[in-house]
């Protein structure tokens, strides 16, 4: 099946099986920041990517569904020399242990903070509830998202 989509800002022509899921497609394209922790059930959140800015479980999303849409994976958010502010805050807060859930977690946090730079504790909990982490106990992940929100608010007020 052939279709056109945008992945990490680049327009791409995709030719894949109609039954392929988005997770497998992204891995095939070399985007290995997307991870798998369940059996294509959408229950762990490690495969989260953004489709038009909305957190999407790539392991249960048919690849052809992204035709005409924009996909963002962790690789496009930032790089070690130029990290996104949320990535920096996750690192600073020690919100990353094994790192396997981090790409999905950070993308879910980005989707939240894109809409709301002043989220309550409960709003953060809800936005990240689909991303399982077994290492950190979530405490420092909450810290990271709150710090990132504060930094984004500061950036916005400086920009004015």
């Amino acid at each position, binding site marked *: 099946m052939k279709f056109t989509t945008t992945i990490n800002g680049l327009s791409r022509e995709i030719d894949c099986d109609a039954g392929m899921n988005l997770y497998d497609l992204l891995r095939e394209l070399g*985007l*290995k*920041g*997307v*991870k*798998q*922790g*369940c*059996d294509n*059930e959408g*229950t*762990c959140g*490690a495969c989260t990517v953004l489709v038009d800015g909305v957190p999407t479980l790539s392991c249960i999303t048919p690849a052809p569904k992204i035709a005409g849409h924009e996909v963002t*994976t*962790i*690789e496009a*958010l*930032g*790089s*070690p020399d130029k*990290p996104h502010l949320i*990535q*920096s805050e*996750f*690192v*600073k807060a*020690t919100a*990353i*242990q*094994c*790192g*396997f*859930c*981090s*790409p999905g977690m*950070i993308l879910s946090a980005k989707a939240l903070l894109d809409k709301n730079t002043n989220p309550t504790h409960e709003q*953060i*909990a*809800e936005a*990240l*509830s*689909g*991303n*399982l*982490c*077994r*290492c*950190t*106990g*979530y*405490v*420092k*992940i*909450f810290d990271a998202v709150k710090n990132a929100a504060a930094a984004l608010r500061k950036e916005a007020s400086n920009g004015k």
Partner: protein
Amino acid sequence: MANDKLDALDAKYARDFKVIGHSVQKIDAMGMACGLEEYVADHDLTGALVGYIVPSPHAHARIVKIDATRARAVKGVHAVLTYKDVPRHLHTTAGQGYVEPSPYDTAILDSKMRLVGDHVALIAADTREIAEEAGRVLLEDIEWEVLTPVLDADHAMDPGASVIHDEPDAYIPIPVPYEPQKNMASAASMGVGDMDAVLKTSHLAIDETYSTHYAQHCPIETHVCLGSIDGRDRLKLITSTQVPYHARRITAQALGIPVKRIRVNKPRIGGGFGTKQEVLLEPLVGALVLATRRKILMRLSRAEEFVSRVRHPIKTRMQAGFNADGTVNGMRMEVLSNTGAYGSHALTVMCNCGSKVLPLYRMKTVAFDAKAVYTNLPVGGAYRGYGATQSAFAMEVMMDEVAEKLGIDPLELRRRNHIQPGEGSPVFAALGEGKPGVEQKIGSCGLSDCLTLGAEAIGWEEKRGKIRGTGPKKRGIGMCALMQGSSIPEIDMASVSIKMNDDGSFVLAAGATDLGTGSDTVLAQAAAEILGVEVTDIIVHSSDTDLTPFDVGAYASSTTYLSGEASRRTAIEVAKQIREVAADMFHEEKGMDPRPDPDTLVLKDKQVFAPNGESVTLNAIGLRSLYERDQHQIGHIGSAISHKSPPPFSAHFAEVEVDEETGKVRIVKYVTTMDCGTALNPKLAEGQVEGAVVNGLSFALTEEYLFNEKGRMQNANFADYKIFNTDDMPEMVTIMVPTYEETGPFGGKSVSEIGINGPIPAIANAIYDAVGVRIHHAPFTPEKVLKAIQEKKAREAKK
């Protein structure tokens, strides 16, 4: 949190460290945040086949006839291996030191199945779907003798029970009891003093039984191994392991090939928590690689992961005698552990029930009796807490019950009995890992301060024993005290190599396995502190059995204490070599006459300083030593073994809200106070505590295995096996209580495991405070709590 007592403790134990004690950024965190760090499945998979284990449909059955012809003919299948196609070298999958204290009861493949999901055959195919299809075909072509399964640990040793390990060649390679014909995988006991007399004569005698349940570690990355063979006929395994060296040794043993033919590489690991202390996939992948000469990727599905290795369910009976003032006269702990279908870690987990819990309280008379039994259920393994989690529940709820009976505050009861610096325990010397233990006296113990600070943070005085809450929702608080160990004394060994580069930076290679814990960073901190550089000047590699020096691996709470010490010692030797070169440079290049005594030189700020204040840079020393004069590689491999296992101590406090109408328990607030000696990296140490605690909360309340009557797990997925997410989180407070452990690197001891032991007892005690019911069998599900509440009401109505 602002606290005068804590500030005073911080000041008391403050040392002038430049790198240690600072929350240095975890060296691999930014790469992880950007999705760039490589885990096993992120390696080049070009041409790789998928490795698959055909799962047994039966909990207990023998293969009478197997014909793989049709399975092998499935298009896209490259190999189907049955027990007839692989060598039979019995081994244990427990990734422990040589010789392992676990029975050799496992073959790569066997003709007998001992649990649902046991290994019928191995398949290499182009895709997982093809492999599964070939597996279905193979299962159609097997004639089975289906045997009665043993599904109840309590009756596993009954006369007439099916014998699970009736193969004649299974044995345990150390001199300890092993009677597979009775389904007994292990037994151990010790005793000091007359326990029967204690129970007869004590002011208060207690006899209660408690149990903990099945649980899985649930690392988000399941077990995964990528194997290949190179032009020199060597097997390379890139694998998600906590124990690269044990994986190499045990894989060699299982396949019957020399250790030198195997290279094990551990890349980034997506969590382990003990389950990756198991050499589970490496021999299987090795067998498929040798059969096909192809690259093989084997990754367990989540459903397979649930029945790979689990926490041993354990029943603990506590008998104890107390004086009227609350002091302990003596205790007997009786343990029945269900090791499942294989005896991995059976002996050692069960011994840890005693050795990591009984010494917490001072007692002259003590007895320990333990058995581990085989059943046709999932296989126990190493899981964070390692036995202490199971028996701390028994000990700490019993202490709460005793406190109530004696009318003593539970905190005060702990204060009157807990071990203090300078004291030993008869248990330390008596209980080891398949042999007697090692006597030790406690060096550092901050438990008294942990109790005080935790009580303050939860509001113990104001809240305990008070009826609180509105309507059916009642609040209560509970606490517990804990200890663990740091490494296995006189057994564990770690080593680290450090070499200097021409720019004054260093390459540190360690066999220690960072599985997300941050140990690479902590090892670098230890070296940087000694070498007078920053962590960013240390390039860390862990672990590759060809290139990094030996380490037993990440288990037994040993990495900071032992591998950290190896890093410190190695750096001291390297610093000595650097001072020699610097002394020559001061003499020859700076005109210092006579040549300064190297011992007077100080490494600081990437330079070496002479007493007169003159300095040479590490950069200049690196260039001189490699290119200019008396050229040699500055570097050293240093080792450390442990002679003690200093316990970290901790006190946990839970506030819960119990709904009397539904039985639902909500954690309102959870306070952990932690004495791990010096926290080498405080934020990473806190992260270990928080992660362990939340895993424990989840274990206490929501994690539960559901089996059908044939022994098949019914909820092997994250929708039906519920682990905590962000929505389940209570208010969390973590207080690091400083002490200084003289035997540890920079005063440090362990931190990673102990935290998981607290939630079950602390919550059980809080539930009692809230609604007056004692629950001795975890987990505390709404059904169970509601039933207990209703039974209590029925009892009260009768009166």
